[in-house]
Protein backbone atom coordinates (compact mmCIF):
# COMPACT_ATOMS: atom_id res chain seq x y z
CA UNK A 1 0.00 0.00 0.00
CA UNK A 2 1.60 3.24 -1.12
CA UNK A 3 0.25 6.72 -0.72
CA UNK A 4 -0.16 9.15 -3.59
CA UNK A 5 1.27 12.64 -4.11
CA UNK A 6 -0.20 15.74 -2.48
CA UNK A 7 -1.74 16.98 -5.71
CA UNK A 8 -5.49 17.21 -5.33
CA UNK A 9 -7.48 15.34 -7.95
CA UNK A 10 -10.87 15.85 -6.34
CA UNK A 11 -12.16 18.02 -3.58
CA UNK A 12 -15.67 18.31 -2.27
CA UNK A 13 -16.29 21.33 -0.09
CA UNK A 14 -19.28 21.74 2.21
CA UNK A 15 -21.45 19.41 0.12
CA UNK A 16 -25.03 19.34 1.31
CA UNK A 17 -27.84 17.27 -0.20
CA UNK A 18 -31.35 17.67 1.12
CA UNK A 19 -34.50 15.91 -0.04
CA UNK A 20 -38.01 16.93 1.03
CA UNK A 21 -37.81 15.72 4.62
CA UNK A 22 -34.30 14.33 4.78
CA UNK A 23 -30.81 15.79 4.82
CA UNK A 24 -28.63 13.06 3.34
CA UNK A 25 -25.39 15.09 3.38
CA UNK A 26 -24.70 17.94 5.73
CA UNK A 27 -21.59 19.94 4.83
CA UNK A 28 -19.25 17.12 3.78
CA UNK A 29 -15.60 17.89 2.92
CA UNK A 30 -13.51 15.34 1.05
CA UNK A 31 -10.14 15.38 -0.69
CA UNK A 32 -8.69 12.71 -2.98
CA UNK A 33 -5.03 13.15 -3.95
CA UNK A 34 -3.27 11.91 -7.06
CA UNK A 35 -2.53 8.20 -7.06
CA UNK A 36 -4.28 7.52 -3.77
CA UNK A 37 -6.92 4.91 -3.02
CA UNK A 38 -9.49 6.62 -0.82
CA UNK A 39 -12.16 4.63 0.99
CA UNK A 40 -15.55 6.01 1.96
CA UNK A 41 -17.13 4.05 4.77
CA UNK A 42 -19.98 4.37 7.21
CA UNK A 43 -23.13 2.60 8.33
CA UNK A 44 -26.17 2.17 6.05
CA UNK A 45 -27.85 5.50 5.37
CA UNK A 46 -24.76 7.51 6.30
CA UNK A 47 -24.71 9.21 2.88
CA UNK A 48 -21.82 7.39 1.16
CA UNK A 49 -23.64 6.59 -2.06
CA UNK A 50 -25.30 10.02 -2.14
CA UNK A 51 -21.88 11.67 -1.89
CA UNK A 52 -20.56 9.46 -4.68
CA UNK A 53 -23.58 10.40 -6.82
CA UNK A 54 -23.01 14.11 -6.17
CA UNK A 55 -19.39 13.69 -7.27
CA UNK A 56 -20.32 11.67 -10.37
CA UNK A 57 -23.18 13.97 -11.40
CA UNK A 58 -26.04 11.52 -10.86
CA UNK A 59 -27.32 13.96 -8.22
CA UNK A 60 -26.73 17.69 -7.92
CA UNK A 61 -25.78 18.97 -4.44
CA UNK A 62 -28.18 21.39 -2.74
CA UNK A 63 -25.15 23.37 -1.58
CA UNK A 64 -21.36 23.21 -1.67
CA UNK A 65 -18.87 22.69 -4.51
CA UNK A 66 -17.15 19.79 -6.21
CA UNK A 67 -13.82 20.49 -7.89
CA UNK A 68 -12.12 18.01 -10.21
CA UNK A 69 -8.62 18.65 -11.56
CA UNK A 70 -8.95 22.28 -10.53
CA UNK A 71 -12.24 22.80 -12.34
CA UNK A 72 -15.58 23.43 -10.63
CA UNK A 73 -17.83 20.60 -11.83
CA UNK A 74 -20.64 21.05 -9.32
CA UNK A 75 -23.27 21.56 -12.04
CA UNK A 76 -21.63 19.58 -14.87
CA UNK A 77 -23.54 16.73 -16.52
CA UNK A 78 -22.35 13.11 -16.09
CA UNK A 79 -21.17 13.12 -19.71
CA UNK A 80 -19.07 16.27 -19.13
CA UNK A 81 -17.52 14.72 -16.01
CA UNK A 82 -16.77 11.51 -17.90
CA UNK A 83 -15.09 13.48 -20.66
CA UNK A 84 -13.04 15.35 -18.05
CA UNK A 85 -11.59 12.04 -16.83
CA UNK A 86 -13.94 10.72 -14.17
CA UNK A 87 -15.43 7.26 -14.34
CA UNK A 88 -18.09 5.55 -12.22
CA UNK A 89 -19.00 1.96 -11.49
CA UNK A 90 -22.53 1.75 -10.15
CA UNK A 91 -23.49 -0.23 -7.06
CA UNK A 92 -25.96 -2.32 -9.05
CA UNK A 93 -24.34 -3.66 -12.21
CA UNK A 94 -25.55 -1.69 -15.19
CA UNK A 95 -24.00 -3.61 -18.03
CA UNK A 96 -26.31 -4.16 -21.01
CA UNK A 97 -27.28 -7.81 -20.45
CA UNK A 98 -28.61 -8.45 -23.98
CA UNK A 99 -25.44 -7.24 -25.69
CA UNK A 100 -22.29 -9.34 -25.88
CA UNK A 101 -19.44 -8.85 -23.42
CA UNK A 102 -17.38 -7.53 -26.35
CA UNK A 103 -20.00 -4.96 -27.36
CA UNK A 104 -20.39 -3.79 -23.75
CA UNK A 105 -16.67 -3.11 -23.59
CA UNK A 106 -16.71 -1.43 -26.99
CA UNK A 107 -19.54 0.85 -25.83
CA UNK A 108 -17.43 2.09 -22.94
CA UNK A 109 -14.47 2.82 -25.22
CA UNK A 110 -15.97 4.59 -28.21
CA UNK A 111 -17.79 7.49 -26.52
CA UNK A 112 -15.18 10.01 -27.69
CA UNK A 113 -15.46 9.07 -31.34
CA UNK A 114 -17.54 11.12 -33.73
CA UNK A 115 -21.00 10.00 -34.86
CA UNK A 116 -19.72 9.71 -38.43
CA UNK A 117 -16.95 7.34 -37.34
CA UNK A 118 -19.53 5.28 -35.49
CA UNK A 119 -21.91 5.22 -38.44
CA UNK A 120 -19.19 3.86 -40.71
CA UNK A 121 -18.10 1.45 -37.94
CA UNK A 122 -14.51 2.63 -38.13
CA UNK A 123 -14.21 2.42 -34.34
CA UNK A 124 -14.55 -1.37 -34.18
CA UNK A 125 -11.36 -2.06 -36.06
CA UNK A 126 -9.42 0.69 -34.31
CA UNK A 127 -10.47 -0.39 -30.81
CA UNK A 128 -10.42 -4.17 -31.27
CA UNK A 129 -7.00 -4.77 -29.71
CA UNK A 130 -7.79 -2.53 -26.74
CA UNK A 131 -11.12 -4.29 -26.16
CA UNK A 132 -9.60 -7.75 -26.23
CA UNK A 133 -6.66 -6.69 -24.04
CA UNK A 134 -9.01 -5.30 -21.38
CA UNK A 135 -11.19 -8.40 -21.51
CA UNK A 136 -8.11 -10.58 -21.10
CA UNK A 137 -6.91 -8.46 -18.17
CA UNK A 138 -10.22 -9.11 -16.40
CA UNK A 139 -10.35 -12.80 -17.38
CA UNK A 140 -13.33 -12.25 -19.68
CA UNK A 141 -11.78 -12.85 -23.10
CA UNK A 142 -13.22 -16.36 -23.29
CA UNK A 143 -16.73 -14.99 -22.91
CA UNK A 144 -16.38 -12.14 -25.42
CA UNK A 145 -19.13 -13.22 -27.79
CA UNK A 146 -21.64 -14.26 -25.13
CA UNK A 147 -24.42 -11.99 -23.83
CA UNK A 148 -23.16 -10.10 -20.79
CA UNK A 149 -26.26 -11.19 -18.86
CA UNK A 150 -24.99 -14.78 -18.86
CA UNK A 151 -21.88 -13.89 -16.82
CA UNK A 152 -21.74 -14.74 -13.12
CA UNK A 153 -22.36 -11.89 -10.68
CA UNK A 154 -18.65 -11.54 -9.94
CA UNK A 155 -17.77 -11.49 -13.63
CA UNK A 156 -20.43 -8.84 -14.27
CA UNK A 157 -18.80 -6.70 -11.57
CA UNK A 158 -15.42 -7.20 -13.25
CA UNK A 159 -16.87 -6.26 -16.60
CA UNK A 160 -18.25 -3.11 -14.98
CA UNK A 161 -14.85 -2.26 -13.48
CA UNK A 162 -13.13 -2.99 -16.80
CA UNK A 163 -15.61 -0.72 -18.59
CA UNK A 164 -15.11 2.03 -16.01
CA UNK A 165 -11.32 1.76 -16.43
CA UNK A 166 -11.35 1.42 -20.19
CA UNK A 167 -10.87 5.09 -21.03
CA UNK A 168 -7.96 5.61 -18.64
CA UNK A 169 -9.79 7.87 -16.19
CA UNK A 170 -7.90 10.08 -13.75
CA UNK A 171 -10.38 9.21 -11.03
CA UNK A 172 -12.34 5.98 -10.72
CA UNK A 173 -15.43 5.97 -8.49
CA UNK A 174 -16.44 2.49 -7.34
CA UNK A 175 -19.68 1.91 -5.47
CA UNK A 176 -19.49 -1.39 -3.59
CA UNK A 177 -17.46 -3.31 -6.17
CA UNK A 178 -17.37 -6.53 -4.15
CA UNK A 179 -21.07 -6.63 -3.20
CA UNK A 180 -22.37 -10.18 -3.59
CA UNK A 181 -18.91 -11.63 -4.39
CA UNK A 182 -17.43 -14.79 -2.88
CA UNK A 183 -14.24 -14.48 -0.77
CA UNK A 184 -12.25 -15.80 -3.73
CA UNK A 185 -13.77 -13.23 -6.09
CA UNK A 186 -13.11 -10.45 -3.55
CA UNK A 187 -9.43 -11.41 -3.34
CA UNK A 188 -9.18 -11.49 -7.13
CA UNK A 189 -10.86 -8.07 -7.35
CA UNK A 190 -8.28 -6.63 -4.95
CA UNK A 191 -5.51 -8.08 -7.13
CA UNK A 192 -7.10 -6.53 -10.22
CA UNK A 193 -7.39 -3.08 -8.66
CA UNK A 194 -3.85 -2.96 -7.24
CA UNK A 195 -1.97 -2.23 -10.49
CA UNK A 196 -4.26 0.69 -11.50
CA UNK A 197 -2.74 2.85 -8.73
CA UNK A 198 0.02 3.92 -11.11
CA UNK A 199 -2.39 5.48 -13.57
CA UNK A 200 -5.44 6.67 -11.62
CA UNK A 201 -6.85 7.57 -8.23
CA UNK A 202 -9.68 5.65 -6.67
CA UNK A 203 -12.63 6.64 -4.50
CA UNK A 204 -14.36 3.55 -3.26
CA UNK A 205 -17.52 2.99 -1.23
CA UNK A 206 -17.47 -0.43 0.37
CA UNK A 207 -19.03 -2.32 3.26
CA UNK A 208 -16.30 -4.95 3.43
CA UNK A 209 -13.91 -3.31 5.88
CA UNK A 210 -11.18 -5.94 5.47
CA UNK A 211 -11.16 -5.25 1.73
CA UNK A 212 -11.07 -1.48 2.32
CA UNK A 213 -8.21 -1.74 4.84
CA UNK A 214 -6.26 -3.89 2.42
CA UNK A 215 -6.35 -1.58 -0.59
CA UNK A 216 -6.95 2.00 0.68
CA UNK A 217 -4.33 4.55 1.79
CA UNK A 218 -6.84 7.03 3.17
CA UNK A 219 -10.33 6.77 4.60
CA UNK A 220 -13.26 9.07 5.26
CA UNK A 221 -15.88 7.89 7.71
CA UNK A 222 -19.41 9.23 7.33
CA UNK A 223 -22.26 9.01 9.78
CA UNK A 224 -25.68 10.62 9.37
CA UNK A 225 -24.46 12.74 6.47
CA UNK A 226 -21.43 14.16 8.29
CA UNK A 227 -17.71 13.37 8.30
CA UNK A 228 -16.76 11.64 11.55
CA UNK A 229 -13.07 11.24 10.69
CA UNK A 230 -10.80 11.50 7.69
CA UNK A 231 -7.13 10.66 7.23
CA UNK A 232 -4.73 7.81 6.60
CA UNK A 233 -6.12 4.32 7.07
CA UNK A 234 -3.86 3.77 10.07
CA UNK A 235 -4.95 7.02 11.74
CA UNK A 236 -8.64 6.37 11.13
CA UNK A 237 -8.30 2.78 12.38
CA UNK A 238 -6.83 4.09 15.60
CA UNK A 239 -9.23 7.00 15.99
CA UNK A 240 -11.03 6.96 19.30
CA UNK A 241 -13.82 9.06 17.81
CA UNK A 242 -14.45 6.54 15.06
CA UNK A 243 -14.25 3.60 17.41
CA UNK A 244 -16.77 5.19 19.72
CA UNK A 245 -19.08 6.32 17.01
CA UNK A 246 -18.93 3.50 14.56
CA UNK A 247 -15.86 1.39 13.87
CA UNK A 248 -15.40 -0.47 17.10
CA UNK A 249 -14.04 -3.46 15.25
CA UNK A 250 -11.88 -1.83 12.60
Amino acid at each position, binding site marked *: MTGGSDKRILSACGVRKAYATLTALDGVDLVVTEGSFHGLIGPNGSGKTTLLKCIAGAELPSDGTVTFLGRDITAATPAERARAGMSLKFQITSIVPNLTVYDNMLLSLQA*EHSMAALMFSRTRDVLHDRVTALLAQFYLDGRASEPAGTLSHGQQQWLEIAMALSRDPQLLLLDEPTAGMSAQERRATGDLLGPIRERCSLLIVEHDLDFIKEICDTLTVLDQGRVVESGSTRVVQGSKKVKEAYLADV
Partner: protein
Amino acid sequence: MIRSASSADTSGRQRRAIPWIEALLLAAFAVLPVLVDDFWVLFATRVLIVGLLALSFDLVWGYAGILSFGQALFFGMAGYSCALLATKLEITSILVLLPAAVVVGFLVALIMNFLILFGKRIPTPIFIALGTLTGSYVVERLARGWSYVGGQNGIPSLPRLTIGSYEIVEGRVFYYAALAILLLVYVGLRWLSRSQFGLVLAGIRLREPRMAFFGYRVQSYKAVAFALGGMIAGLSGCLYAFHEGYVGPGQLGPVLSTQAVLYVLFGGVGTLVGALLGVGIVDLFSYVLSQQWETGWPIVLGLLLLVVVMFRPKGLIGFLVPERERVGSFGSRSLIGKRQPPVGATDPLRP
Protein backbone atom coordinates in the same frame (compact mmCIF):
# COMPACT_ATOMS: atom_id res chain seq x y z
CA MET B 1 -7.75 -22.69 -18.88
CA ILE B 2 -9.13 -19.69 -20.70
CA ARG B 3 -11.31 -20.36 -23.70
CA SER B 4 -10.29 -18.29 -26.66
CA ALA B 5 -12.66 -15.69 -28.04
CA SER B 6 -12.60 -17.44 -31.38
CA SER B 7 -13.84 -20.73 -29.98
CA ALA B 8 -16.55 -18.98 -27.98
CA ASP B 9 -17.59 -17.22 -31.13
CA THR B 10 -17.86 -20.41 -33.11
CA SER B 11 -20.00 -22.03 -30.46
CA GLY B 12 -22.16 -18.93 -30.12
CA ARG B 13 -22.85 -18.55 -33.83
CA GLN B 14 -26.52 -18.81 -34.63
CA ARG B 15 -28.55 -19.34 -37.71
CA ARG B 16 -30.25 -16.07 -38.58
CA ALA B 17 -33.93 -15.75 -39.41
CA ILE B 18 -34.23 -12.07 -40.37
CA PRO B 19 -32.32 -12.25 -43.71
CA TRP B 20 -34.59 -15.10 -44.82
CA ILE B 21 -37.74 -13.18 -43.91
CA GLU B 22 -36.39 -10.10 -45.70
CA ALA B 23 -35.57 -12.10 -48.84
CA LEU B 24 -39.01 -13.74 -48.91
CA LEU B 25 -40.76 -10.41 -48.38
CA LEU B 26 -38.73 -8.72 -51.11
CA ALA B 27 -39.47 -11.56 -53.55
CA ALA B 28 -43.19 -11.35 -52.71
CA PHE B 29 -43.25 -7.55 -53.18
CA ALA B 30 -41.33 -7.84 -56.46
CA VAL B 31 -43.76 -10.25 -58.14
CA LEU B 32 -47.02 -9.14 -56.53
CA PRO B 33 -48.17 -6.65 -59.22
CA VAL B 34 -47.77 -9.32 -61.88
CA LEU B 35 -50.05 -11.71 -60.02
CA VAL B 36 -52.91 -9.50 -58.82
CA ASP B 37 -55.43 -7.05 -60.30
CA ASP B 38 -55.35 -3.24 -60.12
CA PHE B 39 -57.28 -3.00 -56.86
CA TRP B 40 -54.68 -5.05 -55.02
CA VAL B 41 -51.83 -3.14 -56.65
CA LEU B 42 -53.27 0.09 -55.22
CA PHE B 43 -53.75 -1.64 -51.88
CA ALA B 44 -50.16 -2.94 -51.85
CA THR B 45 -48.82 0.52 -52.84
CA ARG B 46 -50.49 1.97 -49.74
CA VAL B 47 -48.87 -0.78 -47.66
CA LEU B 48 -45.45 0.15 -49.05
CA ILE B 49 -45.97 3.86 -48.40
CA VAL B 50 -47.37 3.40 -44.90
CA GLY B 51 -44.54 0.88 -44.38
CA LEU B 52 -42.17 3.85 -44.56
CA LEU B 53 -44.11 5.55 -41.76
CA ALA B 54 -43.91 2.35 -39.70
CA LEU B 55 -40.15 2.14 -40.35
CA SER B 56 -39.76 5.69 -39.08
CA PHE B 57 -41.50 4.74 -35.83
CA ASP B 58 -39.45 1.55 -35.53
CA LEU B 59 -36.26 3.61 -35.83
CA VAL B 60 -37.23 6.09 -33.12
CA TRP B 61 -38.83 3.60 -30.71
CA GLY B 62 -37.40 0.20 -31.59
CA TYR B 63 -33.81 1.42 -31.91
CA ALA B 64 -33.47 4.77 -30.13
CA GLY B 65 -36.07 4.15 -27.41
CA ILE B 66 -38.00 7.38 -28.10
CA LEU B 67 -41.70 6.70 -27.57
CA SER B 68 -43.05 9.01 -30.27
CA PHE B 69 -46.80 9.24 -30.58
CA GLY B 70 -46.44 11.97 -33.17
CA GLN B 71 -45.02 10.38 -36.33
CA ALA B 72 -48.09 11.57 -38.26
CA LEU B 73 -46.98 15.13 -37.57
CA PHE B 74 -43.99 14.72 -39.93
CA PHE B 75 -46.07 12.63 -42.35
CA GLY B 76 -48.85 15.21 -42.60
CA MET B 77 -46.67 18.33 -42.57
CA ALA B 78 -44.64 16.96 -45.48
CA GLY B 79 -47.85 15.91 -47.27
CA TYR B 80 -49.37 19.38 -46.88
CA SER B 81 -46.15 21.16 -47.87
CA CYS B 82 -45.75 19.11 -51.04
CA ALA B 83 -49.46 19.50 -51.86
CA LEU B 84 -49.08 23.29 -51.56
CA LEU B 85 -45.99 23.23 -53.78
CA ALA B 86 -47.95 21.26 -56.37
CA THR B 87 -51.16 23.30 -56.26
CA LYS B 88 -49.81 26.83 -55.68
CA LEU B 89 -46.47 26.66 -57.54
CA GLU B 90 -47.30 23.80 -59.94
CA ILE B 91 -44.23 21.84 -58.92
CA THR B 92 -44.89 18.17 -59.55
CA SER B 93 -41.43 16.76 -60.15
CA ILE B 94 -40.69 13.87 -57.82
CA LEU B 95 -37.06 15.00 -57.87
CA VAL B 96 -38.09 18.25 -56.15
CA LEU B 97 -41.03 17.10 -54.03
CA LEU B 98 -39.40 14.11 -52.35
CA PRO B 99 -36.32 16.07 -51.19
CA ALA B 100 -38.70 18.86 -50.08
CA ALA B 101 -40.67 16.31 -48.03
CA VAL B 102 -37.45 15.07 -46.42
CA VAL B 103 -36.44 18.64 -45.55
CA VAL B 104 -39.87 19.41 -44.05
CA GLY B 105 -39.75 16.19 -41.98
CA PHE B 106 -36.28 17.15 -40.80
CA LEU B 107 -37.24 20.72 -39.86
CA VAL B 108 -40.36 19.64 -37.95
CA ALA B 109 -38.29 16.99 -36.13
CA LEU B 110 -35.71 19.65 -35.31
CA ILE B 111 -38.39 21.84 -33.71
CA MET B 112 -39.77 18.86 -31.78
CA ASN B 113 -36.23 17.97 -30.69
CA PHE B 114 -35.76 21.38 -29.11
CA LEU B 115 -39.21 21.39 -27.53
CA ILE B 116 -39.13 17.87 -26.14
CA LEU B 117 -35.78 16.08 -26.19
CA PHE B 118 -33.25 18.72 -25.18
CA GLY B 119 -32.99 19.75 -21.58
CA LYS B 120 -30.67 19.48 -18.63
CA ARG B 121 -32.42 16.34 -17.46
CA ILE B 122 -33.29 13.26 -19.48
CA PRO B 123 -36.98 13.48 -20.50
CA THR B 124 -39.08 10.49 -19.42
CA PRO B 125 -40.79 8.25 -22.02
CA ILE B 126 -44.20 9.48 -20.81
CA PHE B 127 -43.16 13.11 -21.29
CA ILE B 128 -41.96 12.34 -24.82
CA ALA B 129 -45.10 10.33 -25.65
CA LEU B 130 -47.44 13.06 -24.42
CA GLY B 131 -45.34 15.83 -25.96
CA THR B 132 -45.34 14.25 -29.43
CA LEU B 133 -49.02 13.30 -29.16
CA THR B 134 -49.89 16.88 -28.21
CA GLY B 135 -47.86 18.22 -31.15
CA SER B 136 -49.71 15.92 -33.53
CA TYR B 137 -53.10 16.90 -32.06
CA VAL B 138 -52.44 20.65 -32.07
CA VAL B 139 -51.29 20.72 -35.69
CA GLU B 140 -54.27 18.64 -36.79
CA ARG B 141 -56.64 21.11 -35.08
CA LEU B 142 -54.80 24.01 -36.70
CA ALA B 143 -55.13 22.42 -40.15
CA ARG B 144 -58.86 21.82 -39.61
CA GLY B 145 -59.42 25.49 -38.88
CA TRP B 146 -57.11 27.07 -41.48
CA SER B 147 -58.85 27.82 -44.76
CA TYR B 148 -55.55 28.37 -46.66
CA VAL B 149 -54.88 24.63 -46.39
CA GLY B 150 -58.51 23.68 -47.04
CA GLY B 151 -59.74 23.45 -43.44
CA GLN B 152 -61.73 20.27 -42.77
CA ASN B 153 -61.64 19.33 -46.46
CA GLY B 154 -57.88 19.41 -46.84
CA ILE B 155 -56.36 19.83 -50.30
CA PRO B 156 -58.05 17.59 -52.91
CA SER B 157 -57.33 16.81 -56.56
CA LEU B 158 -53.57 16.83 -56.39
CA PRO B 159 -51.81 16.50 -59.76
CA ARG B 160 -49.76 13.43 -60.52
CA LEU B 161 -46.07 13.25 -59.63
CA THR B 162 -43.81 13.57 -62.63
CA ILE B 163 -40.28 12.73 -63.58
CA GLY B 164 -39.30 14.84 -66.60
CA SER B 165 -42.31 14.75 -68.87
CA TYR B 166 -43.39 11.33 -67.60
CA GLU B 167 -46.34 11.06 -65.20
CA ILE B 168 -46.11 8.55 -62.39
CA VAL B 169 -49.57 7.04 -62.65
CA GLU B 170 -51.16 5.22 -59.72
CA GLY B 171 -50.91 1.49 -60.31
CA ARG B 172 -47.89 -0.58 -61.25
CA VAL B 173 -45.62 2.38 -62.04
CA PHE B 174 -46.32 4.09 -58.71
CA TYR B 175 -46.01 0.70 -56.98
CA TYR B 176 -42.49 0.05 -58.23
CA ALA B 177 -41.44 3.66 -57.54
CA ALA B 178 -42.67 3.26 -53.95
CA LEU B 179 -40.98 -0.14 -53.68
CA ALA B 180 -37.67 1.30 -54.88
CA ILE B 181 -37.86 4.14 -52.31
CA LEU B 182 -38.85 1.74 -49.53
CA LEU B 183 -35.96 -0.55 -50.45
CA LEU B 184 -33.46 2.32 -50.38
CA VAL B 185 -34.69 3.51 -46.97
CA TYR B 186 -34.76 -0.05 -45.62
CA VAL B 187 -31.20 -0.82 -46.74
CA GLY B 188 -30.02 2.50 -45.26
CA LEU B 189 -31.71 1.82 -41.91
CA ARG B 190 -30.44 -1.76 -41.84
CA TRP B 191 -26.88 -0.53 -42.39
CA LEU B 192 -27.25 2.19 -39.76
CA SER B 193 -28.84 -0.06 -37.14
CA ARG B 194 -26.04 -2.62 -37.50
CA SER B 195 -23.26 -0.03 -37.37
CA GLN B 196 -21.46 1.14 -34.22
CA PHE B 197 -23.97 4.01 -34.21
CA GLY B 198 -26.66 1.30 -33.91
CA LEU B 199 -24.71 -0.22 -31.01
CA VAL B 200 -24.80 3.15 -29.23
CA LEU B 201 -28.54 3.40 -29.88
CA ALA B 202 -28.97 -0.11 -28.42
CA GLY B 203 -26.99 0.98 -25.35
CA ILE B 204 -29.15 4.09 -25.00
CA ARG B 205 -32.36 2.10 -25.42
CA LEU B 206 -31.39 -0.52 -22.87
CA ARG B 207 -29.28 1.49 -20.35
CA GLU B 208 -29.71 5.18 -21.03
CA PRO B 209 -28.35 6.59 -17.72
CA ARG B 210 -25.22 4.41 -17.97
CA MET B 211 -24.38 5.75 -21.42
CA ALA B 212 -24.17 9.32 -20.09
CA PHE B 213 -21.59 8.15 -17.54
CA PHE B 214 -19.45 6.80 -20.38
CA GLY B 215 -19.41 10.33 -21.80
CA TYR B 216 -21.98 9.92 -24.58
CA ARG B 217 -24.12 12.96 -25.35
CA VAL B 218 -27.21 10.80 -25.19
CA GLN B 219 -29.68 13.47 -26.25
CA SER B 220 -27.66 14.25 -29.39
CA TYR B 221 -27.82 10.61 -30.49
CA LYS B 222 -31.53 10.53 -29.83
CA ALA B 223 -31.98 13.79 -31.69
CA VAL B 224 -30.24 12.37 -34.77
CA ALA B 225 -32.42 9.24 -34.70
CA PHE B 226 -35.55 11.37 -34.19
CA ALA B 227 -34.61 13.66 -37.08
CA LEU B 228 -33.98 10.66 -39.36
CA GLY B 229 -37.37 9.27 -38.31
CA GLY B 230 -38.97 12.62 -39.17
CA MET B 231 -37.34 12.64 -42.60
CA ILE B 232 -38.57 9.12 -43.41
CA ALA B 233 -42.08 9.90 -42.17
CA GLY B 234 -42.01 13.05 -44.33
CA LEU B 235 -41.08 10.99 -47.38
CA SER B 236 -43.96 8.66 -46.63
CA GLY B 237 -46.41 11.56 -46.20
CA CYS B 238 -45.55 13.07 -49.58
CA LEU B 239 -45.89 9.74 -51.43
CA TYR B 240 -49.19 9.04 -49.66
CA ALA B 241 -50.68 12.44 -50.54
CA PHE B 242 -49.88 12.07 -54.26
CA HIS B 243 -50.92 8.43 -54.38
CA GLU B 244 -54.31 9.26 -52.91
CA GLY B 245 -54.51 12.62 -54.74
CA TYR B 246 -55.51 14.26 -51.49
CA VAL B 247 -54.13 15.50 -48.19
CA GLY B 248 -56.31 16.16 -45.16
CA PRO B 249 -56.12 16.89 -41.42
CA GLY B 250 -56.44 13.18 -40.60
CA GLN B 251 -52.95 12.66 -42.04
CA LEU B 252 -51.52 14.87 -39.27
CA GLY B 253 -53.38 13.63 -36.23
CA PRO B 254 -53.13 11.26 -33.28
CA VAL B 255 -55.19 8.52 -34.98
CA LEU B 256 -52.58 7.93 -37.69
CA SER B 257 -49.76 8.43 -35.15
CA THR B 258 -51.25 5.71 -32.96
CA GLN B 259 -51.79 3.50 -36.00
CA ALA B 260 -48.04 3.67 -36.71
CA VAL B 261 -47.36 2.55 -33.12
CA LEU B 262 -49.79 -0.36 -33.46
CA TYR B 263 -48.34 -1.53 -36.78
CA VAL B 264 -44.91 -1.82 -35.23
CA LEU B 265 -46.06 -3.35 -31.94
CA PHE B 266 -48.10 -5.91 -33.88
CA GLY B 267 -45.31 -6.84 -36.30
CA GLY B 268 -42.45 -6.65 -33.83
CA VAL B 269 -40.34 -3.79 -32.52
CA GLY B 270 -36.69 -3.28 -33.38
CA THR B 271 -36.31 -5.51 -36.42
CA LEU B 272 -37.40 -3.18 -39.29
CA VAL B 273 -38.90 -6.13 -41.18
CA GLY B 274 -41.41 -6.57 -38.34
CA ALA B 275 -42.75 -3.07 -38.99
CA LEU B 276 -43.43 -3.92 -42.65
CA LEU B 277 -45.09 -7.22 -41.72
CA GLY B 278 -47.23 -5.32 -39.21
CA VAL B 279 -48.50 -2.88 -41.83
CA GLY B 280 -49.22 -5.64 -44.36
CA ILE B 281 -51.03 -7.95 -41.95
CA VAL B 282 -53.01 -5.27 -40.07
CA ASP B 283 -54.18 -3.57 -43.29
CA LEU B 284 -55.07 -6.88 -44.92
CA PHE B 285 -56.96 -7.96 -41.83
CA SER B 286 -58.76 -4.61 -41.65
CA TYR B 287 -59.89 -5.02 -45.25
CA VAL B 288 -61.03 -8.64 -44.86
CA LEU B 289 -62.85 -7.89 -41.60
CA SER B 290 -64.53 -4.81 -43.06
CA GLN B 291 -65.92 -6.98 -45.87
CA GLN B 292 -67.40 -9.40 -43.29
CA TRP B 293 -68.71 -6.97 -40.66
CA GLU B 294 -69.39 -3.58 -42.16
CA THR B 295 -69.73 -1.75 -38.83
CA GLY B 296 -68.28 -4.01 -36.15
CA TRP B 297 -64.88 -4.80 -37.73
CA PRO B 298 -62.84 -2.23 -35.80
CA ILE B 299 -63.88 -3.92 -32.55
CA VAL B 300 -62.59 -7.30 -33.76
CA LEU B 301 -59.39 -5.73 -35.05
CA GLY B 302 -58.91 -3.81 -31.80
CA LEU B 303 -59.32 -7.00 -29.76
CA LEU B 304 -56.83 -8.82 -31.97
CA LEU B 305 -54.25 -6.05 -31.58
CA LEU B 306 -54.84 -6.00 -27.83
CA VAL B 307 -54.26 -9.75 -27.56
CA VAL B 308 -51.00 -9.54 -29.53
CA VAL B 309 -49.69 -6.52 -27.61
CA MET B 310 -50.60 -8.06 -24.23
CA PHE B 311 -49.50 -11.64 -24.79
CA ARG B 312 -46.85 -11.24 -27.46
CA PRO B 313 -45.03 -7.98 -26.63
CA LYS B 314 -42.30 -8.85 -29.13
CA GLY B 315 -44.92 -8.94 -31.88
CA LEU B 316 -45.45 -11.56 -34.56
CA ILE B 317 -41.77 -11.48 -35.50
CA GLY B 318 -41.04 -12.84 -32.00
CA PHE B 319 -42.33 -16.24 -33.19
CA LEU B 320 -39.61 -16.40 -35.84
CA VAL B 321 -36.68 -14.38 -34.52
CA PRO B 322 -34.79 -15.19 -31.28
CA GLU B 323 -34.20 -12.38 -28.79
CA ARG B 324 -30.45 -12.25 -29.42
CA GLU B 325 -30.93 -11.67 -33.12
CA ARG B 326 -33.65 -9.10 -32.41
CA VAL B 327 -31.34 -7.04 -30.17
CA GLY B 328 -28.86 -7.10 -33.02
CA SER B 329 -25.25 -7.82 -33.73
CA PHE B 330 -22.92 -5.03 -34.62
CA GLY B 331 -20.27 -6.75 -36.61
CA SER B 332 -18.95 -8.79 -33.64
CA ARG B 333 -18.84 -11.98 -35.63
CA SER B 334 -16.67 -10.48 -38.31
CA LEU B 335 -14.00 -9.35 -35.88
CA ILE B 336 -14.01 -11.63 -32.88
CA GLY B 337 -11.83 -14.56 -33.77
CA LYS B 338 -10.29 -12.80 -36.76
CA ARG B 339 -7.28 -12.01 -34.61
CA GLN B 340 -6.34 -13.81 -31.46
CA PRO B 341 -6.75 -11.55 -28.43
CA PRO B 342 -3.75 -11.09 -26.16
CA VAL B 343 -3.63 -13.98 -23.73
CA GLY B 344 -4.59 -12.79 -20.26
CA ALA B 345 -3.39 -13.90 -16.89
CA THR B 346 -4.67 -17.18 -15.58
CA ASP B 347 -8.21 -16.82 -14.31
CA PRO B 348 -7.92 -17.10 -10.52
CA LEU B 349 -11.44 -18.51 -10.28
CA ARG B 350 -10.62 -21.54 -12.41
CA PRO B 351 -8.91 -24.55 -10.89
